[in-house]
């Protein structure tokens, strides 16, 4: 008798839990796929040039790679329920560093890893100030956003730095594999690497734990500060990669070349399924958001929607994506 009630009760519990999967859960899981599909179908009908190999590879993928790298960068802090607002200026300054090293110091391809290192260093600074001085990450990175963009302007005098170096350019625009631009390959490699890190390494696991509840992680013996800094190091590193590749692709670098990436990347991350409330989603999902934004931008161009309107659309997309993905079980009050 007793055993039957236990069995009944656990059956009841299972039924309850199934029922507890809300519409929102489904929207978060499947939403980006559905949205991407609808956009692709819609634009294919609206413009004959959309669904062609040259448009999809050369325009959509190539143009999305920088956004992908920057969005992957932003994913880790957001997964931890922090945020890195400095990514735009991080891309700008690392690109400028690369361009100066190539044009003024003839460092050639070597300039690219140096730029990546510089990004990693800036990211580490962000992380240390955030974790050790216990200043909210949005404030620290808002500050460094200004510091880094100011520094980049100072280094360049506010102008663009052009250079000529075919090898450097090849790193980004060459076609090592089939006729896929190298930059897309880079993006794919880092995407796979970051997904691997998120799922297979202690760092990745702790990002989820910290995002869900830092105190629980702390009281489980996790050295919380180390991993909080880690997220910003990863973020800086990937922004460095993005800056270097962007400088390589355009054979020049300007302080403001990262502008607009912050909002787009937050939209991509959140739409992919990494909520600003932390602990859910991950870099693997960010790709979906990036593709949605990439297809949206490309499609709107082809259909002839002017860029000012595109900006308005993007703003709406961000707010709607955040609204749909916030895990309201976890938060009662938003400020």
């Amino acid at each position: 008798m007793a055993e039957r009630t236990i069995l009944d009760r656990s059956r009841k519990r299972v039924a309850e839990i199934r029922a507890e999967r809300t519409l929102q859960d489904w929207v978060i899981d499947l939403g980006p796929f559905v949205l991407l599909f609808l956009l692709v179908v819609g634009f294919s009908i609206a413009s004959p040039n959309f669904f062609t190999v040259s448009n999809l590879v050369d325009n959509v993928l190539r143009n999305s790679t920088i956004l992908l790298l920057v969005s992957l960068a932003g994913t880790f802090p957001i997964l931890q329920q922090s945020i890195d607002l400095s990514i735009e200026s991080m891309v700008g300054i690392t690109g400028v560093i690369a361009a100066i090293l190539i044009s003024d110091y003839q460092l050639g391809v070597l300039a690219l890893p140096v730029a990546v290192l510089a990004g990693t260093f800036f990211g580490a600074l962000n992380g240390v100030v955030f974790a050790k001085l216990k200043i909210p990450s949005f404030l620290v990175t808002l500050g460094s956003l200004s510091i880094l963009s100011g520094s980049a302007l100072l280094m360049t005098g506010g102008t663009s730095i052009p250079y000529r170096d075919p090898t450097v350019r090849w790193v980004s625009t060459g076609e090592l594999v089939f006729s896929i631009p190298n930059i897309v390959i880079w993006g794919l490699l880092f995407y796979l690497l970051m997904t691997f890190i998120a799922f297979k390494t202690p760092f990745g696991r702790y990002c989820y734990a910290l995002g869900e509840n830092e105190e629980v992680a702390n009281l489980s013996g996790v050295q919380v500060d180390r991993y909080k800094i880690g997220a910003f190091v990863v973020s800086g590193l990937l922004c460095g990669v993005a800056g270097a590749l962007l400088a390589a692709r355009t054979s020049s670098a300007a302080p403001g070349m990262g502008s607009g990436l912050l909002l787009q990347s937050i939209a991509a991350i959140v739409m992919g399924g990494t909520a600003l409330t932390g602990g859910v989603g991950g870099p693997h999902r960010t790709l979906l958001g990036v593709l949605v934004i990439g297809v949206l931008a490309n499609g709107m161009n082809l259909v002839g929607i002017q860029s000012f309107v595109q900006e308005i659309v993007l703003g709406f997309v961000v707010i709607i994506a955040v609204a749909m993905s916030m895990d309201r079980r976890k938060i009662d009050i938003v400020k």
Partner: protein
Amino acid sequence: MSGDLSTADQGQETVGSDAPRLTVESISKSFRNVDALSDVSLSIETGEVVGLVGENGAGKSTLLKLLTGIHQPDSGRIVLDGEPIRIDGPRDAAHQGIAIVKQEQDVVPNLTGYENLYLDQIPDFARFGIVDSGRMRSKAEQVTEQLGIELDLSAPVSSYSFTERQMLEVSKAFSESIDTDHPIILLDEPTAGLDEDGRELLFDRINELRDRASFVFVSHELDEVLDVSDRIYVLKDGVLVDEVDASEADEPTLQRAMVGRETADEYYRTGRQRSLSQGSDVALRADGLSVADSLDDISFSVREGEIFGVVGVEGCGKSALGRALCGVDPPDAGVVQVHGEELRPESLSRMVEAGIGYVPKDRKAEGLLLYQPLTMNVTLPSIGTDRTSHSLGGLGSLLTLIDSEKERGMAAESVEQLDIRTPGLDSLVYQLSGGNQQKVVLAKWLQRQSDVLVMDNVTRGIDVAAKEEVYRVCRDLAEDGVSMVFIGDELPEVIGMSNRIGVMKKGHLVDVVDAPAQDKPTEEELIEMMI
């Protein structure tokens, strides 16, 4: 079963002379096809204290939510003074005379006591948009004075003790329903987190206010319910299974009714308590632990397989001791020896390396990643150790990669070992019942192979059956040689479980009392030392 009850109802007209103040008539409520309450009827007389007991999920909270209008019943009705009423939410309930003192304290710490008391009515105290604080304060003072509750209402609530906050909640419930003649105050686990003094104060107030109010008292602590109530209703799986006169009932009867089966006479399985010879190895030794303002020169040792209880009134430093031992709040002075290895507890991760595990007081805020899968919770402390990693040969020292197969194996092992009731290894832990959640917290440390567990109120907020399960697990662990520092607010529990009990008072360890299975100290003996 409800048939039995209606006859019982008729026999029960001793307390109030008039018709019942409040009756609930065959009320039912279900959520997504799960019956939370089915056909429940009960009554509350004027001036009566009615106890309401049941395991977690028995329907107590649902009933309270129906009475305060948070939910509406699917069928049945609520009758107040002979008139069927509809309740449109907590404020409406209060206006009709039903107010609730909730389990969680709803206070805003940076506001004063009187501001908190009238938080939702502050606009009513404003004239031309300016708040008349003086009037609010004097009205608040009247309320507490009438109730005989002493509080410094002008001080910010952050300076209140836990007990004072609870008394403020009680005052608030009264103030909300003050316009009604004879309010019904619902007390939802009002003693959770209160120390002995606080409880006594609360019970005093309840007894004093009987002529002015009726109470519904919901608690897991059966002795308290028996103490305070006139009558007790027992809920089980949403059905009212028993109604007893408090003077004729005792704890075992109530437990049996709640759980629906015979509970062991030896609730704490004292028969399984190990008798530890002096020769057993010392697993944990604290030497001169001090933390400014909370701990002063604490030294004691715990042997392998021993359960070392720690008791004391609120603020005595027993929680601080747990946190200091584990390096959560590193002590200013003193050392800890774990299996003979001497350490300064400067960080939890260091102490975990040495074999310590920490079970915090608040499992939801401190112990569990509520919205993550069971597996991830169980393995969290072990991530990065060999137990969860791929064996990569020489590479392993450079790169630790999580082996999800191993992780699932660990989780499955814990589910089996601790009998965790879960639909699956991937279930999010917020979906589990309180007792099973607490087992997950224990599993975290057992899988980390910690063999010295520092547990702060390990059975807090879980029901009788789940507590019993946790006690069983503790006994199993002790048999396996796990040592436990068992910090507790519930004296009977600590007495029942411990081999020895350390008594704390104002940051000092004033005595260590032997508690062998055959010769347990009494609560009174311990209380004497605590105060």
